[in-house]
């Protein structure tokens, strides 16, 4: 019985902590996430391989941050960074893989 109560208490504390961490997003957290996304997108741009959804996620992040919704803004910035990194990986892979498609 005592073990069960302790477990329940631990779960509750964990949930409260997680919620507190989520609501604690700040402008500074957003700035960090957004800068990382922008840097990745810039790298994709240098490879001439940016994706439209990345641009859309960056815009959504900016808009959410401007409205003070930093949780959404950070989610969008992280999404943008992930998309940009996928486009970079695609460009690097295709730099040589394109030759496999040539009609010979």
């Amino acid at each position, binding site marked *: 019985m005592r073990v069960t109560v302790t477990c329940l208490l631990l779960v509750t504390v964990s949930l409260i902590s997680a919620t507190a961490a989520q609501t604690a997003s700040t402008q500074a957290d957003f700035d960090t996430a957004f800068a990382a996304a922008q840097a990745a997108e810039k790298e994709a741009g240098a490879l001439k391989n940016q994706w*439209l959804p990345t*641009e859309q996620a960056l815009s959504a992040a900016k808009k959410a941050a401007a409205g003070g919704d930093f949780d959404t803004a950070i989610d969008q910035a992280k999404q943008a960074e992930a998309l940009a990194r996928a*486009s970079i990986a695609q*460009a690097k892979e*295709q730099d040589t893989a*394109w030759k496999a*498609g*040539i*009609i*010979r």
Partner: protein
Amino acid sequence: MRAAHLISFAMFALVFAAPARAADTVDPSAEFKAFRDYFTQKFPNVPLNDFVNGPYSMDADLRKQWEAIDDFPPYDFAVDRGKEMFATAFKNGKTYGDCFDNKGIGVRQNYPYFDTNSGEVITLELALNRCREANGEVAYSYVKDEMASLTAYMAFTSRGKPFDIKIPNDPRALAAYQNGEKYFYTRRGQLNFSCASCHVQNPGNHIRTEVLAPALGILAAMPIYRSEWGGMGTISRRFVTCNSQVRGVPLQPQDEDYRDVEYYLSYMSNGLPIAGPGARP
């Protein structure tokens, strides 16, 4: 002793480097033949010159609709407007005709070409805007009606003339050809499509309601009136739209990559007749 080792190493490197270089050797004439054979073997019932009609060469029902539409071609207004624009003098008294061979009549089949002076591919759209700028006029947008009208008229005066794209004996020309080829076969965008995904691997198949056109002869009917657009579109507009459709950020119209892919595709269509302007669903 050390010198002997170095020589051995150099020979070793040469032996193994040679096959890699050979694999990278580009032979446009061999690739041209393979490209044409691929499409003619894939579609043995399509006459060679009919490939320039894009989706209409692939789908009988679509062809019937097109033939009915072509009684009153939707691009006629663009041809008329282009003709008028072409004949109207710039402020300095010169005209477009002064910038082109044969006064710009019946020359579409020679574009794009590789300019050995500037070391770049010159498309018809680029040549028209350079003509304007050289005569003190502002360049037109590459994706709007003015450019579509001018190129529609020039294509119209060239109908039936076979594509005659040359690759001069200049390593930069070969590099432009290969860059265009690379662009054509490179997958891009979130959908991970290359130009070839649609126009080599799937011509004749549907993508939603559209019948995909074969890459062979695909630029011969440009510019086109597209029902989907409700208006005329240039080659630049087509490339930009293709990139967007695979969820990629398009390049700037007339970016070097776009000009090079136009060079590559036009070379692959050598001998096929100019059929522009065209109409597409």
